[in-house]
Structure formats: structure tokens, C-alpha cells
């Protein structure tokens, strides 16, 4: 599939609603503490510093519960940091920032609306009706749901709902696209297709993307940079443990030895045993299976 892709990097064609330019994102010492049931506070994030360039794709990796979704929500303005600040294009993030579009970890489709109308919810305000319809139809085609445009969310599978949710976020055509495990519920093949779709869309509209994932290979395939989120020993609160610049240009060869080496390092960083591969030595090219 990767070889079949042409790289359409031309300007946005007519019909696409107000193509927003990509915006850089800057996180400065971002921390988030939640009040615990016993009345105290519990640090979830601590001192996260991250600069994402305009149009860059950054993948956020980390164990479950380490605060990946929380970080994404803070960038989207759905949650506020207890310390530090987040700026998009040098301007502080506002509540429910309109410059962001979020693909939530759960599909969060409105159950009483058809898939088509749910995707249309993502269109920027003020999109002309006809343009909007065309845009939604195109996105549904892209995520392989054209046949299901009229179905309700409870009439489609979990993975299909997740694709609809992805289409809704893409419909926004945002400056910053925040995706929280957008392919988590997909089977292996559909997942690869959707990854390619995301890269196509990004090539056509190079928006800034923050992508949370559990899947090291997905991160290696999609991202310019990978950020490993985790706690440091007994310290409460997760921070950035490791940042990896992924070499080469997309689309990347999924089997390359260089990526395999990186994968090994990342798996180490996640605290996952590589089963026999001696550390530091070129790792095997077998692809570990989700969820490892």
C-alpha cells in the first residue's frame, strides 16, 4: 500500500473548508494533579516540556494510566493544567479551543444521529451546506464507511464507530489535530489502512498532530518524533522520559532494521522485555503483537 501512495502535497483544493494553517504547540512545565478520594492530591503529570513544530506529527507513548489522555485534553482546552502553560501558535490555549480537533479515546458519537450527521458535527462553523455534505461524503469514503452513512452508531461495530470518530475530527480541518488512540479498536489490516489514510490526509493538509498510542510500531510508522511518557522511579507524576526522532521520511518501510533498533529502545523504555534480544545489539525484526 505504501508504494502505491503518491505524495499529494499540493495546496488545498477547492471544496475543502477554510484550510487552517498548521500551528506550533508549546507546553511549558505542564503539571496536573487530581484531588484523590481521600481529599489529598495526586500528581498525574509533572513538568512536561514539549515543543511541537507546525505540521509535525508527534506520537505520545506510555503505559496505561500514565496521563496520556490527560495531556491531550489539556492541549485541547478540555482540562486545565494545575501548573505550567500550553500555547498554540504563541497564544494560550482557551477552554474548548477552536483551533484543536479531538479524536477521543472512545468514539463518543451521538447515538441519535446517523454516522453521516455525526461526522458533519466536526465541520467548522460556517461551512456551506453543500460543501459540508461533499466533505462528509469524502471523509466517509476515506474511512470506508460510505455504505453506513445512514446508520446509527449502535448499528455499526466498535471499530467502525472509531473510524467515524476519526472522520469527525478530520472534518474540522484543524490547526492542531489531537488523536487519542484513534486506531485502538481496529483489526491489524484496517489499522494499517487507517494509518496510511492519516498520512495521506496529513500530506495534503499538513496539520500539527499529537497522537497518543500504545503501539510502538504505529508510532514509528506515523510520527516525526516519539515522546515516551512515564514516571521516574517512585516519583509521583509522569513526565517525558525519552524523546526519539524517527529517522527517514514517510512512508517508512515497516520492516527496516533501523526502525527495529528504535523499536527495541522504545520497548525498553516502556519496560517491556524483548524476549532474548540482547540489549544494544540489533533487534530482531519480528513485530511484537499488541498489547505486547
Amino acid at each position, binding site marked *: 500500500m505504501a508504494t502505491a501512495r503518491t505524495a499529494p502535497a499540493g495546496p488545498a483544493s477547492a471544496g475543502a473548508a477554510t484550510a487552517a494553517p498548521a500551528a506550533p504547540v508549546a507546553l511549558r512545565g505542564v503539571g496536573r494533579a487530581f484531588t484523590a478520594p481521600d481529599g489529598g492530591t495526586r500528581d498525574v503529570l509533572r513538568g512536561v516540556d514539549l515543543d511541537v513544530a507546525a505540521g509535525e506529527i508527534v506520537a505520545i507513548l506510555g503505559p496505561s494510566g500514565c496521563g496520556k489522555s490527560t495531556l491531550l485534553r489539556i492541549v485541547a482546552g478540555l482540562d486545565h493544567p494545575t501548573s505550567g502553560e500550553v500555547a498554540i501558535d504563541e497564544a494560550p490555549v482557551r477552554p474548548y479551543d477552536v483551533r484543536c480537533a479531538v479524536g477521543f479515546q472512545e468514539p463518543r458519537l451521538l447515538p441519535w444521529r446517523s454516522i453521516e450527521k455525526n461526522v458533519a458535527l466536526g465541520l467548522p462553523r460556517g461551512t456551506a451546506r453543500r460543501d459540508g455534505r461533499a466533505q462528509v461524503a469524502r471523509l466517509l469514503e476515506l474511512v470506508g464507511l460510505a*455504505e453506513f452513512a445512514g446508520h446509527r452508531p449502535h448499528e455499526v461495530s466498535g471499530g467502525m464507530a472509531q473510524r467515524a470518530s476519526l472522520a469527525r475530527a478530520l472534518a474540522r480541518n484543524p490547526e492542531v489535530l489531537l488523536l487519542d488512540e484513534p486506531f485502538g479498536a481496529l483489526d491489524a489490516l484496517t489499522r494499517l489502512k487507517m494509518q496510511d489514510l492519516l498520512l495521506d490526509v496529513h500530506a495534503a493538509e499538513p496539520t500539527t498532530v499529537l497522537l497518543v498510542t500504545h503501539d510502538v510500531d504505529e508510532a514509528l510508522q506515523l510520527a516525526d518524533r516519539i515522546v515516551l511518557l512515564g514516571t521516574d522511579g517512585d516519583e509521583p507524576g509522569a513526565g517525558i522520559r525519552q524523546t526519539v526522532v524517527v529517522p527517514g521520511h514517510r512512508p517508512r518501510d515497516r520492516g527496516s532494521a533501523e526502525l527495529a533498533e528504535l523499536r527495541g529502545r522504545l520497548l525498553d523504555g516502556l519496560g517491556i522485555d524483548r524476549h532474548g534480544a540482547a540489549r544494544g545489539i540489533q533487534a530482531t525484526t519480528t513485530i511484537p503483537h499488541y498489547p505486547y
Partner: protein
Amino acid sequence: MTTDAAKTTDTERSGLPDGSVGSAFAAPVAVGGRPVAAADATGPVGVDARPSGDEERPAAASVIRRGGPGRDRRALTSRRWFRIVGGALIPLALLAAWQVVSTSGAVPVSQLPSPEMVWLAAVDLAERGLLGLYVAISTQRVFIGFAFGALFGLLAGAVVGLSRLGDVLFSPTLGAVRAVPSLAWVPLLILWFGIGEDSKVILISIGAFFPVYTIVAASLRHVDRRLLEAGRAFGLRGATLFATVQLPAVVPSVIAALRLALAQAWLFLVAAELIASSMGLGFLLSDSGNTGRIDRIFLAIILLAVLGKLSDALVGLLERWAVRRWA
């Protein structure tokens, strides 16, 4: 999201190994008519039995459309005629038992009039023009009272359910007012509004108000936060957020609340008419009680049952429509 992107993936799609197969196995599926057959049918065609691509899904969709749940396959208990006949069985049995008991003479007619006596009482009242009048005036009171009560209930419920400030300001007071037993209002209403229509309609409005207010406020407060957050994240605010997320989410419970309020309205109607009135079914009840006309008491009770059920069925139709539309 330009056409470029669309084209690219389109060409990709048709280039996929299973892309062409999709239409090939759509046909056997349509003939087979069962979704299960879809998975089996892929075998002979020579593809992996789990293509798991999107191409398999259009086929599945056509199965749903063509061989969908047919009329004939529906369970007996969900068929219309069965529901009507089944629902009428017990009333008919009761009527028959009533007839048997009253003609056997086991119970004196001063305690249990025969169905015929009740029928004759109805004919007698109808000939004097009273039956239609009583039914009409009672129905009118119920519907006016219900309309006002439900309207204010919706408004108050929306204010308390949607705004924190509204909740803080109004819900303790409304909770206290709700705690007042309905009949406690009667003397006050009569003093203030006399024994005319106003006092009755207001009492009925009070009866209809509280179920609507309580249910609407509670269900608005409990709209799925994650959906609300998604709505806000996609730029919905205020009235559009309400129309897009909150209202559709609560429509089924609003209808259920209206249904309850209508039942409550009939209840309060009888309370109002029993105490002070010169017309209506409640008056018929109290008047017949005073004059010992047990046949008319039976008539009034039966009329209340039938009218209550009919008006409830009207809201039930609305409910069925709304559930189909929103749920």
C-alpha cells in the same frame, strides 16, 4: 482532506487484493439472506475467510436491508392484533364475571349494579345532555391544566437542570412546594380563586407540573458528560449545544414525564371536582355518592378509566415516535 487525498486512497483501495472480491461475494450473500452466510461465502471465492477490510461491510449492509427482520418473523407478542386482543382479554373477562355475579343475585344491586344498569344510567344521562357535558368539561380541565403544568414544568426543569445557579436558587424551594400534599392547596385555591374553573385548572396544573419538573431537571443533569464534552470540543455552545446534545438525550424521559403528568392531571381533576364543582366526572361521583346512585358511581369510574387510558394512549403514540426518532 482535499480531493487529492480522496483520489489517492481510492486508487489504493481498488488496488487492494481484496478490493475486487467485495462485489464478487456480495451476490451469494444476498441469496443466502443470512449474515452468517457472508463469512462462509468468502471461502469458495478463495479469499481469506476474515478479510476484515471495509469491502466486506457493504455486503453485510445489503443483507440487513434485503433480508431484514420481516413482518412474519416478528414475535407473536409484538404483533399489533395480538397486543390489542391480548389487552382486551382481561377487561372482557371482568365484564363477563361482573355480569355473572350480578345476575346470580349473590350480591345485592345496591352494592353491585349490573352492567345493564350502568349502561342505562349512561343512556339516561346522555339523553339529558349531561353525560357529554360532564365528559367534555372534565377533559377540558385536564388538558388545560396539563398544558400549563407541563409547560411550566418543562421550563422550570430546564432552568434547574441546565444551570447551576438555577439549581441553587430554585430547587430547594420547588422541592419544598412539591412536598405539600396536593389536597392542602384546595382550601387556599378556593379562597383565592373561588370555586370556578380557575381554582380547578390551577390545582391540576400543580399536579402536572411536578412530575415534569422533577424528571426533566434530573435527566438534563444526567446527560452523558462525555457527549457534552465532545459537543463542546466541536464548538457547540448554549442553544446549539442544547438542541444538538441535551434535548435529544432527554426527549425519551421528557415524554415519559408527560405521560406521568397526564395521569397525575386526572388524579387532581377528581380531587378538584369532588370538593367543589357542579359539573364533571368528579361531581358525578360525589353527587351520586350523596344520592346513593351506585350505577352512576360505576359509570363515572369506568369513564375515568377509559378517558385516562385514551389520553395516555395519545402520549404513548408520541412516545413511540420520539423513541424511534431519538433513541
